[in-house]
């Protein structure tokens, strides 16, 4: 099957940021997401997650340029004060036009 290279951006964030984050991802060029409720612990060991502070994992398939813009945005606005993990992976998709 013919596949095309795209980027998968994964963001793991405090659940209360979900609405804001999705709005911003759309503005930055993402066209769809998969969202899951997740649990875990990271370097901050922030204990706010025990009270109403569940985590969400947002995954979106985008072009390389949009992926870059998203990471830039997150690094500027969220990394300093929120507990957040974000990374980009290379993926192969069919139907490229669905995502970019």
């Amino acid at each position: 099957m013919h596949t095309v290279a795209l980027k998968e951006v994964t963001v793991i964030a405090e659940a209360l940021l979900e609405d804001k984050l999705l709005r911003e991802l759309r503005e930055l060029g993402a066209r769809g997401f998969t969202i899951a409720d997740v649990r875990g612990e990271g370097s901050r060991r922030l204990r706010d997650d025990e009270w109403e502070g569940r985590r969400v994992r947002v995954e979106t398939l985008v072009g390389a340029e949009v992926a870059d813009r998203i990471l830039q945005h997150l690094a500027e606005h969220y990394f300093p004060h929120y507990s957040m993990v974000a990374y980009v992976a290379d993926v192969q998709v069919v139907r490229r036009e669905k995502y970019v």
Partner: protein
Amino acid sequence: MTLELLRANLLSPIVLAFGLGIVATLIRSDLKFPDELYTALTIYLLLAIGLKGGAELAETPFAAFWAPALATLALGVAIPLWSYALLRRLGRFSIADSAALAAHYGSVSAVTFIASLSFLDALRAPYEGFMPTLVAVLEVPAIVVALLLARVRGGGGGSWREVLHEVLAGRSVLLLLGGLTIGFLSGTSGLAKVAPLFVDLFQGALLLFLLEMGMVTARRFRDLARVGPFLLGFGIVMPVLHGALGTWLGGLAGLSLGGSTVLGVLAASASYIAAPAAVRIALPEANPSYYLTAALAITFPFNLTLGIPLYYALARWTHGG
């Protein structure tokens, strides 16, 4: 007589269940509430209180409402102002941390409020039907004032639209006001239809909720050492001062003995549902360890066990009884 009140409160099923929750966490029991149950219980309790208040409101003359509402609003503006000054000057907290704590102490804990109604019910002390409205009145302004302070002092970012949406559309304000409206419009006969679920089962649901609260509180105990002695003192002294002020203002505004007690409780309690969400968005640089631990592991248990009977005793004193 005051000791009698204290004993009655400490031996009430809901306070004992809170204690059980603390024990469960301390002995590392595998007891755990599913998230959904916790959420469902909050919805149930807030809606039940709103419905009951609304039905009673339908029978009360509305003129009696304005003075207490103004007193509540004044508390909501004043408490964060002096709390901020105290935390900043004496506690040497950063601008963001001081404002975050001020928002929590100015705002109100719906669970403490509900526990105080349950305490008054057990004593058969009547209170005004519009008290849940005052919770909604007190919940919002304190958060806005505290965030405004942070902004003026140059400590805060975040957009107002998001914060206001978080507070006004948050479930505690929505369910309380929504319940009040439904109760008010459908009246006592309307409430009678849903009473088997929302009135008869109330105390049992509250017991379950406080069992969970005990566990949440005890998980925060580890942080007590980290927040330092100042915040520990602040978390107990401020509720007593605010409680005294609230009961006194309640008397001035023409509230009954029960109503004044509740206003004292509202002033004394610190929010841990609405305020943390709003503050996390508007003041991300404030450390959640401080405000969550102070509100949840210091002030909430204090109010639940000793505070509520104390504010009742104070209210009785100002009412000359």
